[in-house]
């Protein structure tokens, strides 16, 4: 008799855990590091990625200039970028203003408002690099491994 409420409670708890897990799965999306198809690099370390995104490293192997392509606005990719660099939006803007002023960078990153434009920019600039949500990876982008790991790819449905 006493075991019934306990088991019912256990059921509720299990249900809550399962629903919460599925909710997180739906909410969190992996971010991939994508480059132009012609880029010979296959992988980066997190430290290298930070150096590239902060313009400390400005050329790829072979001397092709890095062209950073970022999403504007409040996209997930942009938030990830700011998190990676430990900067607020305001800090990021000021950082790039200073980099150009000091001659440490020739220009600020290309800021594009949509995934489609980010994809086209990556295709145009041979040194292009962008952070892209895994679900938005399309043919024509090359995904780099990060610290030896590739992001969990979602298989194309068609």
């Amino acid at each position: 008799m006493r075991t019934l409420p306990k088991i019912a409670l256990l059921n509720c708890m299990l249900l809550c855990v399962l629903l919460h897990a599925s909710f997180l799965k739906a909410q969190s999306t992996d971010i991939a590091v994508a480059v132009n198809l012609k880029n010979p690099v296959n992988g980066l370390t997190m430290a290298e990625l930070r150096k590239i995104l902060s313009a400390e490293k400005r050329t790829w192997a072979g001397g092709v200039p890095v062209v950073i392509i970022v999403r504007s606005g409040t996209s997930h990719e942009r938030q990830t970028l700011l998190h990676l660099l430990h900067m607020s939006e305001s800090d990021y803007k000021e950082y790039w203003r200073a980099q150009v002023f000091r001659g440490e960078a020739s220009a600020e990153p290309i800021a594009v408002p949509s995934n489609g434009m980010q994809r086209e920019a990556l295709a145009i600039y041979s040194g292009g690099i962008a952070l892209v949500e895994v679900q938005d990876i399309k043919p024509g982008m090359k995904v780099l491994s990060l610290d030896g790991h590739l992001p969990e790819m979602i298989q194309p449905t068609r």
Partner: protein
Amino acid sequence: MRSSLTLATTLLLFSVVGNAQTKIPASAANDAETIRELKQEVEDLRQRMEILEAREKQSSNANLPAASAASGQQAAEISAVPSPETANNFHEVHGFQWQGFGEFDYKVLDQKTPELGTEGFVPGSAGGFYTGDLDLLLTSRISEKANFLSEIVVNEGDAQSFNIGLDRILFKYDYDDSLRTSFGRYHTAIGYYSQMFHSGKWLQTTADRPLIMQFADEGGILPTQSVGISFTGEIPSGKLGLNYIAEYGSSDTIRAAIDGSGRLIDENNGNHIDGGLFLRPVTVPGLQIGSSFFHDNISDLERGPSVRLGQTIVNGHVIYVGRGWELLNEGFLVRHAYENIPLIYNMPAFYMQFSKKIGRTRPFFRYQYINANPHSIFSDVSLRKGPSFGARYDFDDSIGFKVQLDHTLRTEKPDLNGIQTQLVFAF
């Protein structure tokens, strides 16, 4: 019996949740994906249209010629993707990116005997307004690896006169990360501050530069500007992040004495060599530890028209800029060794500056020290030391306000106390 029922319920619950997770019909998933992609494409097209409309409006306003005759779809794609010059902060005109930095100042100084007035401040007055430097930065991409940079400064002088100067003009060519070259007029790599902070006050936390890093026409003692060649780049060193910088150039420093005597001290500098190494460890982003060496030959015209001396300047610095913190520590040793006279002066100097951004406010503290020999060509400076503290408040990303209190101790002269307020803006 009840236990069996409960167990069955549990299993049923698991299976329902499991099905919900895994058995979404494939066609429904495809439809959802298709709808999502179509929505995305519509959104892309809408945003492209906005960009194209804005560009068309800009072109017609500027009476620009019609777009080049690139073919249909390709032209549309290229024009929809911003060029590398497209910026968040910078304006673009005919392939040039530009940005301006301005300031408006009010300073009160309790000096009894007027010293050098800098940036428009009238020495001897209890307090006054001035406009300091108006700084225009222009950059342009010449090719994939070549760039142009110039910094034009309109500086307020005595009696509200204004001078236009070319602070920096550089042709830059980046071969790769191990070799970046610059040709033209630059700020020497004599210290961290000289390379990182130029004429515009916007980037500075404080209202003024540390005296040791001040430009020569405003009383600074170091040859901070030169025309020549500069090389910099990374040295393969793994996580250490070792970098080098090397410069060879010609300075022709004419210092304004800061003691109010009105003297202009022409140093007749010979060509200089300047080299430095600095670490930017990968494990601590924002940390820079480095050292540099500078050498040239200069004149001491007060001792005679042909008196020459070797000037060697050694710098060491430990810098951390990150996570809202700004910790700047630089030390210098300036050594003047006379030719044909057994006379050597070793003159130390340093400054340290700490600040932390808290919300929109950045309180700061700076202590600076220069001990120039009173018999050297820096006799007007002699010993000066003291703290400065204050705060910078940023109203937004383009307008800031600074308040700074200074206390300076001088050898055989009364202490100086000052208050500076500065409105800075980027446009």
